[in-house]
């Protein structure tokens, strides 16, 4: 009877396409919004994940997220180095500074000051230039999106100059870096160079980046650092989630996206549910006739579930496809870098569509199960 169910479903092309459209629309809205939400939330802590050469972040014990790290005294670096289990530790500056371009315009920048000797925390992939050139005086590297933001439409040209706090800064490379939450350019320089950019501050070191001795558990080493120095020490993942949780709990981002995602679910459920239910109601006499002719309730339930799965599968596939097309289409846009369709969004949306189809099918199934086959004898 499966082909009968299929033909019943596809027989009325308008309703069939309407059902698929409802599911596809819901899928598109949910998967696209969930993906963007995850991308934006990931951006809040993307710079933590970008640092792949150190697994421990040490900071002031009141830090709530990466952008709110008060300076540490330089002596803290030595204290961290003295903790058993710490293989090495280097300093890292992270701050937001104002740069002046040659044409007189000013731009805010996120500046990373890397340990002069090791460059721990440096970008992993260069597009133009060499990381080693960071040793040159006043040198800096900027991320791709930052370059396009600072010099829109212009080809990569090294040697460009900026003024930061009246100090000269020279571009020696363009790198790939994860987009930050604020979409500001990300500038990498040596710690010593950064110290010339920063206004006079007694404490400039934002973080100490450390690495455990091989074979030591990072979390255990973090606990030792905290116990011995009174500072906060977190593994990369712990710091990532601490930052993410701050943004989730302290901003309106989850609420805004949550409302849109919920609307996608509700609209999808309403459109699909109503159309599918009406489809069942219109076919009630046919279902009654099938019942009279000897089709069991179980088989009818199977037919309705099959129809639901076909609609759900087709709509979901189209919706996910449209979401993929959206992200493919927007991938060249620099400001949308890092926003892409995630497996979690695809999977989560799949579950939501399954729920929509289940709810929708249950209403129809109930109608058919309570249907008296004798209805077919009532004119």
């Amino acid at each position, binding site marked *: *009877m499966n*082909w*009968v169910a299929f*033909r*019943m479903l*596809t*027989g*009325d092309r308008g309703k069939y396409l309407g059902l698929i459209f409802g599911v596809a629309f819901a899928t598109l809205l949910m998967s696209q919004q969930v993906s963007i939400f995850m991308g934006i939330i990931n951006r809040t802590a993307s710079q933590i994940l970008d640092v792949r050469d150190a697994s421990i972040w040490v900071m002031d014990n009141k830090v709530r997220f990466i952008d709110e790290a008060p300076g540490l005294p330089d002596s803290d670096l030595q204290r961290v180095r003295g903790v058993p289990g710490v293989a090495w530790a280097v300093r890292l500056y992270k701050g937001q500074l104002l740069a002046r371009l040659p044409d007189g315009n000013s731009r805010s920048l996120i500046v990373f000051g890397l340990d002069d000797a090791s460059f721990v925390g440096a970008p992993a992939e260069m597009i133009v230039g060499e990381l080693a050139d960071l040793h040159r005086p006043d040198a800096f590297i900027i991320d791709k999106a930052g370059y396009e933001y600072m010099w829109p439409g212009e080809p990569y040209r090294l040697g460009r100059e900026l003024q930061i706090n009246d100090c000269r800064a020279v571009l020696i490379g363009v790198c790939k870096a994860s987009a930050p939450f604020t979409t500001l350019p990300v500038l990498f320089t040596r710690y010593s160079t950064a110290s010339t950019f920063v206004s006079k501050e007694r404490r400039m070191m934002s973080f100490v980046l450390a690495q455990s001795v091989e074979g030591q558990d990072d979390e255990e080493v973090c606990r030792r650092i905290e116990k011995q120095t009174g500072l906060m020490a977190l593994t990369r993942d712990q710091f990532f989630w601490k930052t993410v949780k701050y943004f989730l709990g302290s901003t309106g981002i989850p609420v805004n996206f949550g409302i849109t995602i919920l609307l996608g679910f509700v609209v999808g459920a309403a459109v699909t549910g109503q159309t599918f239910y009406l489809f069942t109601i219109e076919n009630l*006499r*046919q279902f*009654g*006739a*099938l019942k*009279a*002719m*000897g*089709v*069991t309730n179980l088989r009818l339930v199977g037919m309705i579930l099959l129809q639901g799965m076909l609609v759900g599968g087709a709509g979901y596939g189209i919706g996910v496809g449209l979401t993929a097309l959206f992200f493919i289409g927007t991938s060249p846009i620099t400001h949308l870098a890092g926003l892409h369709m995630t497996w979690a969004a695809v999977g989560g949306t799949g579950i939501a569509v399954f729920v929509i189809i289940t709810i929708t099918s249950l209403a129809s199934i109930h109608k058919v199960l309570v249907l*008296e*086959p*004798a209805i*077919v*004898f*009532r*004119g």
Partner: protein
Amino acid sequence: MTIQLLDSHAQQTPDDDLSFSAVVCRGVTKEFGSGDTVTVALSGVDLDVSSGQMTLLVGESGCGKTTLISIIAGLLDPSAGEVHVFGEALHQMRGRQLVRFRAENIGFVFQQYNLLPALTAAENAAIPLIIGGEPRTSAVRRATELLDAVGLGNRAGSYPHQLSGGQQQRVAIARALVNEPRLLVCDEPTAALDAKSGQTVMELLKRVAVQPGRAVIIVTHDSRVFGVGDRIIHMSDGRVERIASAGKS
């Protein structure tokens, strides 16, 4: 045409041999609702229907003929009484057993045809075979042969909306007969048709459906087709009022 009055009593005399007749009803009562709102649709109906005959169930609207045919077809449970179809106690059957009995023994022709609009005439006619587990291809082939017998061999690939009312009803008759049921129940098969089409459908039923070993019960209030039946059961107020035999002279 002459109609011979067989029994003028309000109820038919019960026949003790339940296996003799195709359909035997004894004291069948059906009530709808409960308490003060109870409605009695059938009141102690006794009835025998023989195989090889076309039996017409006639009467005014609301007299209980549709309720009775629903009970005989196993679509409604009687409130009281017994229903035996080919010796099987239908009133004692429940669930899957009843569904299987209907699928294997009873064919249906409905007033509104109830064809699936998305299926062709042949596919519609094949449905009972497919319900019975026959592969789709062979089921459609057999259904097409039967459509030939009802004069629609050249419309096997047509969809219901491409057929006239009479043609749709003929497809419905082919569907009802395709798995060779022992009991055929028809509910107002001519009600939605004009006089000519109605007569054609009734004659078709008489020619194709009535066979030895098969009982045909037709609910109708269309007096123009009374002459086609072998036996006419008149109902009134939930009871069998009288039974007459009809024949062409």
